[in-house]
């Protein structure tokens, strides 16, 4: 189905960013435009998902050039679902930013860059052209560079150097992989590549290209042993920025892997073993890393790595059920990780520190707030029927069906590690009696904030917590979508037919 409206989520974000640039000097108008725009984006993305779910894959050929010659945009259920999740996280963080981002940062263009980042993310999910994917990746990283360094504190700059270096390296590797792939096939359209790569006789060269893609996407999604930039940088910017990074940036890498390794390179035994080994080590190193951290934002950063391992394990097992599990987990993870970084920011507003040693007594002082924060924390652990449980259940089922007990063992081990880490965090931050903290002058505490700002911060956390609960209790609906997506990924005929015609 040719449908030019599928690029609307991308165009809309660009439009919002331009509008924001015109109202550069007025921070209140900027806040209003950002929140309203994000709300419209959410509605549009929801409509897109419903349309795609009902009527099948929608495509847009840029400039009317038929695939595989032009640039194609494809909205299948997977893309549309991720665009919707981006819009949800975008709305929550936009509202949260209203409450938490300092005026100085807004003056330097926080909101326009934020919407350009969301534009890049939506574009990366919707494109059906491998070089265009590279371009969207670049838009994402350049916006994230600016957001990461905005403010220019010492830790931010140091974190940014590591982040910028690794991401630029990843881009070069990705570009190299695209070059070799183009040399091998003479095409850039992903559906067309799917057909042409299957015909190449020199499988050795195909595997080398696949590994280059794996390394490029691996750096972006922070898998073992390429993750060191993540815990060095994600805890340095303001919590609103950490939230959007933690929720979405690494997940684009996971999306790209799921797409490329089901559509273009079908993993043979060698490749799936490599992915599985990487997944296992990612789970282990993320989990163990989180165990020894004291800064709550660093704990969450390491947990991102640990849970990227889960999704990769689902891809490594490579069966419909396991991939459906990985997709369910991806949905849950985007919402919950965004929420957790926002929660950490709210804790900071109350206490003025991120250190677990110094924090404490949060439950005694703010019981209602603690109960709210318990929702994302326990969803992350995956206590049934909360949202983290179902994805893991599907993945474990898939792995057992393939009698892949190693993956089952490590997914369960990773869950235990997460449980232990969150239990420790809960008792350190919420239950133990904390020391008296001295008032810091340069921090604006929660009680000193205007009521609107307070409501914005808490409201966005409530919003994402409700969605988390919705995913947990309405698991049947998400599971139907995940299994549909996984089936379409495992058998890409529908995708190829939609793009190339017959």
């Amino acid at each position: 189905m040719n449908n030019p409206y599928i690029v609307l989520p991308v165009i809309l974000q660009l439009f919002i960013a331009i509008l924001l640039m015109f109202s550069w000097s007025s921070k209140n108008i900027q806040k209003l435009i950002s929140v309203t725009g994000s709300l419209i984006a959410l509605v549009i993305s929801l409509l897109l998902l419903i349309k795609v779910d009902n009527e099948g894959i929608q495509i847009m050929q840029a400039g009317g050039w038929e695939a595989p010659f032009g640039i194609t945009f494809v909205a299948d259920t997977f893309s549309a679902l991720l665009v919707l999740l981006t819009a949800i996280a975008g709305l929550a963080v936009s509202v949260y930013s209203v409450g938490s981002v300092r005026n100085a940062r807004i003056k330097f263009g926080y909101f326009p860059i934020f919407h350009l980042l969301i534009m890049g993310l939506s574009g990366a999910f919707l494109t059906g052209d491998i070089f265009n994917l590279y371009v969207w990746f670049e838009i994402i990283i350049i916006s994230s560079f600016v957001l990461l360094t905005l403010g220019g504190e010492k830790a931010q700059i140091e974190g940014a150097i590591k982040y910028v270096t690794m991401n630029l390296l990843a881009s070069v590797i990705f570009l190299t992989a695209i070059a070799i792939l183009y040399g091998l096939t003479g095409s850039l359209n992903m559906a067309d590549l799917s057909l042409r790569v299957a015909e190449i006789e020199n499988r050795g060269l195909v595997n080398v290209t696949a590994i280059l893609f794996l390394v490029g996407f691996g750096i972006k999604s922070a898998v073992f042993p390429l993750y060191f930039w993540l815990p060095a940088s994600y805890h340095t910017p303001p919590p609103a920025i950490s939230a959007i990074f933690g929720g979405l940036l690494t997940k684009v890498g996971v999306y790209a892997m799921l797409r490329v390794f089901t559509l273009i390179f079908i993993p043979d035994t060698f490749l799936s073993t490599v992915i599985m080994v990487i997944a296992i080590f990612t789970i282990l190193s993320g989990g163990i890393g989180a165990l020894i951290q004291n800064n709550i934002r660093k704990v969450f950063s390491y947990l991102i790595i640990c849970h990227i391992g889960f999704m990769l394990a689902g891809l490594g097992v490579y069966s419909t059920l396991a991939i459906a599990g990985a997709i369910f987990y991806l949905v849950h993870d985007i919402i919950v990780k965004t929420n957790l970084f926002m929660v950490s920011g709210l804790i900071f507003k109350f206490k003025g520190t991120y250190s677990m040693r110094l924090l404490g007594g949060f439950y005694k002082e703010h019981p209602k707030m603690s109960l709210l924060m318990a929702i994302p924390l326990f969803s992350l652990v995956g206590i049934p029927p909360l949202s983290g449980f179902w994805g893991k259940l599907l993945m474990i089922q898939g792995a057992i069906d393939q009698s892949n007990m190693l993956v089952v063992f490590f997914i369960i081990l990773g869950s235990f590690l997460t449980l232990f880490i969150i239990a420790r965090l809960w008792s350190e931050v919420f239950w133990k009696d904390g020391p008296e903290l001295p008032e810091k002058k340069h921090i604006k505490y929660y009680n000193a904030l205007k009521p609107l700002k307070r409501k914005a911060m808490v409201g966005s956390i409530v919003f994402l917590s409700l969605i988390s609960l919705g995913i947990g209790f309405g698991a049947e609906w998400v599971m139907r979508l995940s299994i549909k997506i996984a089936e379409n990924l495992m058998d890409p005929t529908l995708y190829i037919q939609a793009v190339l015609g017959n």
Partner: protein
Amino acid sequence: MEILLVIIIGLLYAAGIYMMLRRSLVKLIIGLILLGNGANLLIFLLGKIVKGKPPIIGASEKMLGEIYADPVPQALILTAIVISFGLQAFAIILIKRAYKVVKTDDLDEMNATDEDL
């Protein structure tokens, strides 16, 4: 011509990675620039280099001949160059800023993000 380009690309990649592994910030950026240029040349090379065969279909013919200069890689390189130009400009400003804030260009001394607070 091809073999010459292959050697240059290999050298650019090797030199780029070597420079990235040094401790100095400036060398890090130079390494990234070299790597980027290597990748651009690689795309150029893989588009099949031929002399004097523009991708134009003659008046009497229906389709392109066997070998022609592929225009797509050149479009790709152009895009990649523009993007890497922007990114490198940002990276250079970033290291200048880092030098002012941290007062060192030695990567081993940038440990503020590992502090336990």
